[in-house]
């Protein structure tokens, strides 16, 4: 650890310590659909449509939703792996659109990503030392023995060891590869890590190892996570706040427990009630109304409320009226659904489970 350039808390670029690490405002990404002889643009896939959120330091924000909801694209745009159509992304107070290439490279070192697939996201021809050390080399943070020492530290931090330095990706199991992915992301002392379905390809027993690792690293290093996933159980375990996306838009954003116990949007509630309940008695006792149909294509989202064609509570005017995202109390946001009634079918699965768990807790306490 001799020549490693440690990232000071307040960056040299003059960022503030107290402000959010990431602020995303009105972020929009439309992919053109081209066709024909002249490649005319005949429409747009509205992958991300006016999305705003922020992440505080040391906080985990989960971005959840089904396929095609735009969560992955949001992550890529935040990292500037792709350019937004409009909207701003501010990292540590700096607008990513206004920094030059050098500054962007500097910021990239402070934002990292962990990908889903531990099999394809590591270069099979590079050793562990090279994979993890690459970021240090690129950003000129360490070289030679110092780099090797730093890599060893990182490997130990994620539960691997110096013996793994010279190994290649195929010599590791899926969980170990994902640890290498975590070590690589940690190498440049990032303040923000975007976890794009980072544990989705792992078996549950191994997934738990990686989730705990991510939590421990957060406690230890104060890292913020943008946790992109479709797995609501994982969200509930790891996230402080949750943004639920549907067809490119955020439909609800709230603190995790609030969202799970008291959803304020019909889609959130439907999504939650679709999650299998591990307790077979509860699973059978719970009345559920599965959503009809599939997620529509983001290239032609339904008119009015985008959820109306699958919504169990939709009425005629939902076809025309597009609810806007409003601030509720406690920093919550939800699209203001005029038809939403908190618990129309009596107990929802989630609240039922809550009360059950509470009962169990009191029984155990007695």
């Amino acid at each position: 650890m001799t020549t490693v350039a440690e990232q000071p808390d307040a960056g040299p670029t003059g960022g503030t310590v107290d402000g959010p690490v990431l602020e995303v405002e009105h972020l929009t990404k439309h992919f053109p659909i081209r066709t024909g002889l002249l490649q005319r643009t005949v429409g747009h896939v509205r992958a991300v449509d006016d999305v705003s959120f922020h992440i505080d330091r040391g906080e985990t924000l989960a971005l959840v939703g089904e396929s095609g909801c735009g969560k992955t694209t949001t992550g890529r745009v935040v990292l500037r792996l792709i350019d937004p159509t409009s909207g701003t992304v501010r990292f540590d107070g700096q607008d990513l659109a206004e920094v030059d290439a050098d500054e962007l490279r500097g910021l990239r070192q402070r934002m990292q990503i962990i990908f889903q697939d531990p099999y394809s996201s590591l270069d099979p021809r590079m050793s562990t030392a090279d994979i993890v050390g690459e970021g240090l080399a690129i950003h000129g943070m360490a070289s030679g023995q110092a780099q090797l020492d730093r890599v060893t530290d990182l490997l130990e931090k994620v539960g691997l060891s110096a013996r793994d330095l010279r190994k290649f990706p195929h010599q590791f199991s899926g969980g170990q590869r994902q640890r290498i992915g975590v070590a690589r992301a940690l190498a440049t002392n990032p303040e923000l890590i975007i976890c794009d379905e980072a544990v989705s390809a792992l078996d549950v027993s191994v997934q738990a190892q990686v989730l705990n690792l991510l939590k421990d690293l957060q406690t230890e290093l104060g890292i913020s996570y943008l946790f992109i996933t479709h797995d609501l159980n994982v969200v509930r375990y790891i996230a402080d706040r949750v943004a639920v996306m549907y067809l490119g838009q955020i439909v609800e954003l709230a603190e995790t427990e609030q969202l799970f116990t008291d959803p304020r949007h019909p889609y959130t509630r439907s999504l939650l009630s679709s999650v299998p309940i591990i307790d077979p008695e509860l699973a059978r006792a719970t009345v559920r109304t599965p959503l009809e149909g599939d997620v529509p294509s983001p290239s032609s989202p339904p008119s009015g409320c985008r959820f109306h064609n699958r919504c169990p509570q939709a009425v005629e005017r939902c076809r025309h009226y597009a609810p806007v995202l409003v601030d509720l109390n406690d920093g919550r946001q939800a699209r203001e659904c005029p038809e939403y009634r908190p618990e129309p079918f009596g107990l929802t699965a989630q609240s039922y489970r809550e009360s059950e768990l509470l009962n169990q807790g009191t029984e155990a306490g007695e």
Partner: protein
Amino acid sequence: MHDAVLRIAGLRTQFRTRQGTVDAVSDVSFDVRRGETVALVGESGSGKSVTALSVLQLLESTGSIADGSIVFDGRELVGLSEKEMRDVRGREISMIFQDPSTCLDPVFTIEDQLVEALTIHGTARSDARGRALELLRMVRMPDPETRLNAYPHELSGGQRQRAMIATALALDPQLIIADEPTTALDVTVQAQILDLIRTLQAETGAAVLFVTHDLGVVAEIADRVVVMYAGRVVEQGSVFQVLKDPRNPYTAALLASMPGAVAGTGQRLTPIEGVVPSLLDMPSGCRFAPRCPHAWDRCHEADPPLAAFDLNRESRCWLEVDGAVDGVGTAEVVG
């Protein structure tokens, strides 16, 4: 004895690899009774899919059943000729696969593929067309007349899985093997498909062998559960018993590592340390011993047998066998 439609006993399935022959599963025994849903659960490498494919003898060319018996409806399937197995496949036992986007032939219409399932087993083509539409209605395919002429890529994931299920139901089989049928689907669509499978099972009375890695799905759909680890059955019993009161340390550990089981209660996940052993390098004693929090000397020395206790419950653990000595439960060693 209960009325088992499928009885697997001592199944050992081998694969030829460059490093020699390996047993992907060994000593696998369980029953599926008429009309019930049995979940076969395990992580990757547990052998759950190999077991399922062994039943229909649809293993890759390097795999083969080395030992054991698979009795379906009173008839031994192991040792049947390929031609005899073809009569069983699709007609008496049918199968639903994981990824509906790759499991339907892309160059044929849904109708072609449904009709084929029927004509293979002798239905007249003219009758098959009518039946195909009927099947799509059964699986609640939206706008079934149009969907008949659609190609797989023109359907959504959920619709493709419905088409797949329709194919499996074509000849009213007694047993449907579903290999991770909802794993590739979005959670709201998964809920629909689980609901559909439950409904259709009630309508047709078919038994379902449901292969999955997701204990949440197990809780939703299964009557009984067979838990596999590293090519072995480690525990089985009713879904309530196994998930609410797991007896095998592996099942308990698996539950403790699931975010859905502890989330929101402020508890920390308890991962299972280490990795699933490689088929080429199995531990000599209990296969879970290297990762087991309860393991002691004996576990590393000898492989425990699958021991029965209570009614219809089994666990493969020395705790269970020794429990009998200590007077805990009424365990007996199953041959």
